[in-house]
C-alpha cells in the first residue's frame, strides 16, 4: 500500500486547490434544498459533510458535479467559475464523485469499468495503471468478472476504483460506508486517507461519527439546506446546536 499512492496517475494533482461555493441556493417548487451555502474546500485533506436526512448534503454534491445545474450563486474550481459546465466537463476538470446508490456499469468487467473511467478523462489508461488501481481496491482476484456478479460492497469498491482511475482533484464520496463490512470500511478509509495525503481533496458525506472523528480534518454540519457549523471535528461535534439537531439528546450529554 505504502509505495502505491492512489493519485500517481498521469495527471496527479499538484499543489493546493480550492473548490468554492459562493451563495449557492436551490429551490424545488416551495422546498428550499440549499439556502445560501458558502463553503470553501481546500485539497489535501478530508472534509466531512454531515447533517440530518434531507439537510441538502447530496444536493450540494449534485450542484458541485453539475448533475443539478439550476442553482443560484456560483461554484468555482481554483477561481474558475464552472457553473455552465456539463457534468462530463466537470469530471474532466477533476470533480469526481461516488453515489449513495452505487452506480457502475453492470455488464462490463471490473477491468473494463476501471479502463473506461480512466480513459474517459484525458488519455487512455495504461495496463499498469489499471492493474494498480484494481490492486488498490483489492479486487485483483476477480478482475475479469462482470460488475453484475459483485456483492454490494465490492461494487462500492469498484466505484471508488473508477474514481481513483480518473485521478481527480476532488473526490466526493456520498455515504461510502453504508452497508460495508468492517474490513471493507477500513479499506475505504485507507484509500481515502492516502488520497488526501497525495494532495487531492476528499469531500465525505457520512453519518459514521467515529470514522469522521478519526479521519476528517474538518466537519461541516448542514441543516435545512444551510451550513449550521463548520470547524475541526471535536469542536463541531460537541457544538450544542449540532447535538440538538443531528446527534440527538442522549449523545449530546456524553
Amino acid at each position: 500500500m505504502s509505495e502505491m499512492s492512489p493519485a500517481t496517475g498521469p495527471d496527479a494533482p499538484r499543489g493546493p486547490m480550492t473548490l468554492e461555493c459562493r451563495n449557492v441556493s436551490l429551490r424545488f417548487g416551495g422546498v428550499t434544498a440549499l439556502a445560501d451555502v458558502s463553503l470553501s474546500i481546500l485539497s489535501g485533506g478530508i472534509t466531512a459533510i454531515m447533517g440530518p436526512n434531507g439537510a441538502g448534503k447530496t444536493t450540494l454534491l449534485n450542484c458541485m458535479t453539475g448533475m443539478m445545474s439550476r442553482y443560484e450563486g456560483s461554484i468555482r474550481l481554483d477561481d474558475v467559475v464552472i457553473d455552465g459546465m456539463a457534468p462530463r466537463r466537470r469530471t474532466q476538470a477533476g470533480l469526481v464523485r461516488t453515489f449513495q446508490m452505487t452506480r457502475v456499469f453492470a455488464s462490463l468487467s471490473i477491468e473494463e469499468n476501471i479502463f473506461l473511467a480512466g480513459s474517459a478523462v484525458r488519455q487512455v489508461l495504461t495496463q499498469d495503471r489499471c492493474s494498480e488501481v484494481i490492486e488498490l481496491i483489492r479486487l485483483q482476484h476477480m478482475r475479469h468478472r462482470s460488475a453484475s456478479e459483485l456483492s454490494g460492497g465490492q461494487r462500492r469498491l469498484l466505484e471508488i476504483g473508477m474514481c481513483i482511475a480518473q485521478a481527480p482533484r476532488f473526490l466526493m464520496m456520498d455515504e461510502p460506508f453504508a452497508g460495508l463490512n468492517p474490513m471493507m470500511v477500513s479499506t475505504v478509509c485507507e484509500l481515502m486517507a492516502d488520497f488526501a495525503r497525495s494532495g487531492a481533496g476528499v469531500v465525505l458525506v457520512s453519518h459514521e461519527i467515529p470514522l469522521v472523528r478519526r479521519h476528517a480534518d474538518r466537519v461541516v454540519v448542514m441543516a435545512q439546506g444551510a451550513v449550521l457549523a463548520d470547524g475541526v471535528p471535536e469542536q463541531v461535534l460537541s457544538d450544542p446546536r449540532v447535538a440538538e439537531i443531528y446527534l440527538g439528546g442522549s449523545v449530546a450529554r456524553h
Partner: protein
Amino acid sequence: MLAAPKWISRRRHLALRADFYLGIATVVAAVVCSLAGVGGAYGISLVAAGLFYATATMGWCLQSGYGGMFSLAPAAIIMIAAYVSAFASNAGWPMGMAVLGGTLSGALAGFIVALATSRLKGHYFALATLVAAEIVRLAVTNEYDVTGGEAGLRTGPLFEGASGVHISLVFAGVLILLLVALLAALRGMPGIAMQAIRDDEGIAAIRGLNVPLVKTLIVVVGSSITAFAGAVYVHYIQLATPQMGSLFQTTFIMSIGIIGGVRSMSGAIVGAALIVGLQEVLRDYPFTHMGLTALAILLVCQFAPAGFAGLLLGRARRIQQRFTVSEHAK
C-alpha cells in the same frame, strides 16, 4: 479514445472472434451457393436478396442492438437511399457516385432524426422514428411528378451485364469489410463505451463520456450501412418504389435482426439466411410462413434473447471451455 488496447478483456476478444468467424462463414457459404448456381437463377436471386437484407439489417442491429436506440425506420432509410441512388444514376452520374450519394442521403436522414430525437429514449424514440419514416414514405408516394408515385421509378443496372451473382459478390465483400471494421471497433474503446452507455446512460455521461456524440455516431454509421444496401439493391431490381419503405419491410428487417441476434455481428447475417430460407421453404403457404416467423420471434425473445447467432456462439463457447482450462480462473 479509439485506441483498442490488446490487453483488455480476453473474454470479450474470444467472444467477438467466434462471432466474427460465424459471420464470415455464413457469407462465404452464401457466395459459394451463388457461384455454384444452387437452385438455378431463382436461387441466385434469393442469395442476392438475402445478402441485401443481411447488410441492411446489420446497420439496424448496430443502432438498435449495440446502440440501444430501437429504430422503426430502417425501411425508410433504404427507400431514401434507393430513390437518391436511382435519381443520381438516371441523371447521368457515374454509378459509384450515385451509390455514394444514396448512402450519404441515408446517413443524413439518420443524422437529422438523431438530432430531432436527441432527448427521446426507448419507445418514445421508436415512435418518433416511425412517424418520420411514414412521413417520408407518404411524401414519396404522393409526389407523383417527381417520384412516379406507387408505380415507382425505373433505373439502370449496377453495371452493364450485372447479374445476381455480381450483386451478391458486392454485398458479400462489403459484409466482410464491415465484419472486420466492427471487430476492430467492438474489441476496443468504442465497444466498451457503447456497452457502458446501454448499461447506464446517465452515469456514462458523468464519468466523462461524450454520450450525445457516441449516440449520434452510432445512428449515422448504422444508417449509412442500411442506406448503402438500398442504394445498391435498387440497381439490382432496377426499380425504386414506396413499398421499399413500408412498415412491412421494417418488420421484416426487425425479424431478421431479432431472430439472428441484435447484439452480435453475425446476427444479421445468420438471421437473413434463416428468414429468407424459411420464406422460400414455405413459399406456397404464405400464412404458415407468417405464423412460423411470429412464433420464432416469440420463442427467441423468451428463450434465446441473444438470438440464433448468440445460441450458436454460446454452445461453441461451452464446448471450447470443456476442452481448455479457463485462463482467467486463476
